[in-house]
């Protein structure tokens, strides 16, 4: 009986863990090794020390990509988070049709980024695109441009397509967070004469703090998933000005077969993500700790 109990968890775990080791754990470590080699995907990898990283740190595209990844994070942290919070508060009130409005706002979330990327490429297209056409129609010709071919704004045009997908997600998380705020608390403040802004500033927002942390971490992780948008909308162009690390890596590894070099880009991406994971884990621990105190 006791013996049985000792073995049984491992009987359940053996297959999942085995597959997980082969497809996830070992590959993750193997990438670190590959980043120290020259490897074309066919012949066995040849150890070259830190040469890939030296090359990477002197490669312009690396810095452009890094900057663009940063732009994704910053815009994502500002636009969808603010908009999502605002919409959540608005739609948590009793407005006729609120349910339908909510569904329409987060519906882009179920669409594949590739689908969204392609639709927005059409919207941005210089001649037949919805955006330029509409601007011309309302007399704003001066604003029309090649949204995805102008190196100064192309990256923001792509990010906006991402924002369109992500905002509904943020709204949804905040809506879930808002349900945990007892309505009597807000009602009491209202009776005491607190204005809508005061109620938000001093009651709702502080109580949403754990939700906001989750939103921020999810948003940072999502902003690193820019590959699909960039790959389908511009593939890094014009002049590599919209390149992001993931697409840069994909091209090096799978178009040029510089797999060792590609692996070094993946390692850098990993290190950036580790920072985010770290924040997330700390947050979860605080949450558990906080939960115990309350109970």
């Amino acid at each position, binding site marked *: 009986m006791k013996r*049985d109990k*000792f073995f*049984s*968890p491992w009987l*359940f*775990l053996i297959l*999942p863990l085995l597959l*997980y080791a*082969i*497809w*996830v754990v*070992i*590959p*993750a470590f193997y*990438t670190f090794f590959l980043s120290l080699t020259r490897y074309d*995907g066919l012949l066995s990898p040849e150890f070259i020390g830190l040469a890939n990283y030296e090359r990477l740190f002197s490669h312009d595209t690396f810095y452009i990509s890094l900057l663009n990844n940063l732009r994704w994070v910053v815009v994502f942290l500002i636009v969808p988070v603010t908009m999502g919070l605002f919409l959540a508060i*608005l739609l948590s009130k*009793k*407005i006729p*049709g*609120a349910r339908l*409005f909510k*569904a*329409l706002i987060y*519906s882009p979330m*179920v669409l*594949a980024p*590739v*689908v969204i990327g*392609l*639709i*927005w*490429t*059409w*919207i941005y297209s210089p001649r*037949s695109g*919805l955006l330029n*056409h*509409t601007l011309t129609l309302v007399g704003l010709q001066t604003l029309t441009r090649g949204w995805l071919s102008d190196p100064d704004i192309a990256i923001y045009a792509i990010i906006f397509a991402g924002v*369109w997908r992500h905002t509904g997600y943020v709204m*949804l*998380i905040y809506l*879930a967070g808002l349900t945990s705020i007892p309505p009597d608390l807000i009602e009491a403040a209202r009776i005491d004469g607190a*204005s809508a802004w005061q109620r938000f500033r001093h009651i709702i927002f502080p109580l949403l703090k754990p939700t906001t942390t989750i939103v921020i971490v999810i948003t940072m992780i999502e902003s*690193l998933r820019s*590959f*699909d948008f960039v790959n*389908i909308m511009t593939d890094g162009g014009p002049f590599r000005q919209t390149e992001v690390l993931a697409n840069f*890596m*994909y091209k090096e*590894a*799978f178009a040029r077969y510089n*797999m060792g070099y*590609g*692996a070094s*880009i*993946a390692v850098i*991406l990993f290190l950036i993500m580790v920072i985010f*994971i770290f924040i997330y884990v700390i947050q979860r621990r605080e*949450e558990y700790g906080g939960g115990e105190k309350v109970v």
Partner: protein
Amino acid sequence: MFNTTIANLIGLSWWKKVSTAIMFIAVLLFVLVWILPLVGAIFTALRPLQDLRAHGFWSIPQEFTLENFAVAWDLGNLNTYLKNSFIITIPSLLGTLTLSSLVGFAVSQYKFRGNMFVYLLFLSGMLLPFQILLIPVFTLSNYLGIYNTYLGLIMIHIVFQMGFCSFFLTNFMSTIPSQLAEAARIDGCSEFKIFYKIFLPLTKPALAALGTLQFTWIFNDYIWALVLIRSDSLKPVTAGLATLQGQYTTDWGVLVAGSLLAAIPTIIVFILLQKYFIKGLTMGMGK
């Protein structure tokens, strides 16, 4: 303060009605602009190219046609791509749910050495950027002879999604009291039967939520399909759209129609199973 003053002046219920009306109109306008890309895409796909070229998007449509959809479906191979998407998504979904519920059961119901380690292993896998796996998994698939096969893609979906699913199901199953298992054990129930007959049925709500979420995630995957599939005849619809874009560079009617066709399965799942989808997202946050 201002609100309450007015409310006192014109009566509370009146003020409430007016402010609700203002909010309603503001939200309505916002939503109309927000879904314009999608509505615009539908109208563009439904109109013939000459009509759009001659009169522009905001003109009153002269006629509607399904030709763009037909071209994307037939000549653009969307029929094959969509079929492939299902062939890949459904086994991946079943596989990952099955394996993850085994993990969830084992980690949540047994106290054993390494319990926390297994939990953290899957938690960190959930947060791992998949980019770090691309090159080795490509090499591994080549080595196993499953590169450019459905199986190769299915395997990585099953295993990679196990990170999130195991984490999710462990959290859910730990809310099921362990006395249930104890009682069954005393009655002579085998460990597997406890899992299969007692815990799995109780986990159904979580599996429904997780399954809905995972369906859209796996169906919408793009990068793994690019990396692990080469043949056009095996590509799922996301990678297929990239091919379509190569064929019909600026024929937006066809490209947009293709994108919409590719989106239909996830939209249907979303409309029918919206409740589960949202539950999956909010449960996943461990709220």
